[in-house]
């Protein structure tokens, strides 16, 4: 982490320090989104079990540098919006018992992993 970034977050917090940097969010609460199946190499925070699945934006959370940049100290990379997406468990796991049709799972993505569904 660069000392420049340490100074930027001190007294402000991370990700609060990125507020106002990502422009307008592409998605809003309630939008249906599909998780992109982008190539896997070296690092991501995008869970494999969500790839290609369709969920609903539960919360537009915050702006920050995407994990794939942040993980190599590239805190100067453009910030983007992050979203909490809600999935039906049945849509994620093929063998999920139908006894619990209302079960959901929520997890977080940066904007580049989402497309409109």
């Amino acid at each position, binding site marked *: *982490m660069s000392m420049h970034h*340490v100074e930027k977050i001190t007294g402000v917090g*991370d990700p609060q320090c990125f507020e106002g940097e990502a422009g307008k969010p592409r998605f809003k609460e309630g939008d249906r989104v599909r998780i992109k199946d982008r190539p896997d190499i*070296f*690092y991501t*925070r995008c*869970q494999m*079990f969500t790839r290609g699945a369709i969920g609903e934006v539960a919360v537009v959370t915050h702006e920050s540098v995407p994990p794939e940049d942040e*993980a190599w*100290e590239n805190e100067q990379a453009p910030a983007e919006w992050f979203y909490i997406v809600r999935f039906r468990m049945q849509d994620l796991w093929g063998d999920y018992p139908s006894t619990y049709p209302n079960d959901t799972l929520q997890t977080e993505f940066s904007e580049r992993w989402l497309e409109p569904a």
Partner: protein
Amino acid sequence: MAASIRQEIQQHIEQVGYLQPAVHQPVHAPFPDEISHDFYRALLRSDHDVGGQPDVPIPWQEKEEEQWELNTYVTCEVLAWRGVWNAEERRRRMNADLGQTQYLGHPYYGRWLISAARVMVDKQHATLNELIDKIDEVKARYESGA
């Protein structure tokens, strides 16, 4: 007597867990045309702690942090305050860079600790020989009981 039966049963259940089917295929520096696209994707898959991988069931156990674990956590946070790494780089190093054998083999805070040592060497805050000498010195002191 009942207690020892319970113990035997526990061991039995644990042992049955080891019988989970697994496919192990010996591979060593294969020719490029022996690598299918599917296998290549599997090879590039990095380990991470965000869940979803298939595994055998493991028992839920409450465990309080030990002193070395707390020390490790604080050391890693201090490295962040001093600009050595951010949380995402730490996760990348301790989850993805270690490789599957070490990822699954170390205790949780063991992964933090080995990654902290590695980042210090990678970024030249300590040389590898300084680290080796220090481990050697501490080991000798520990073994002598001093």
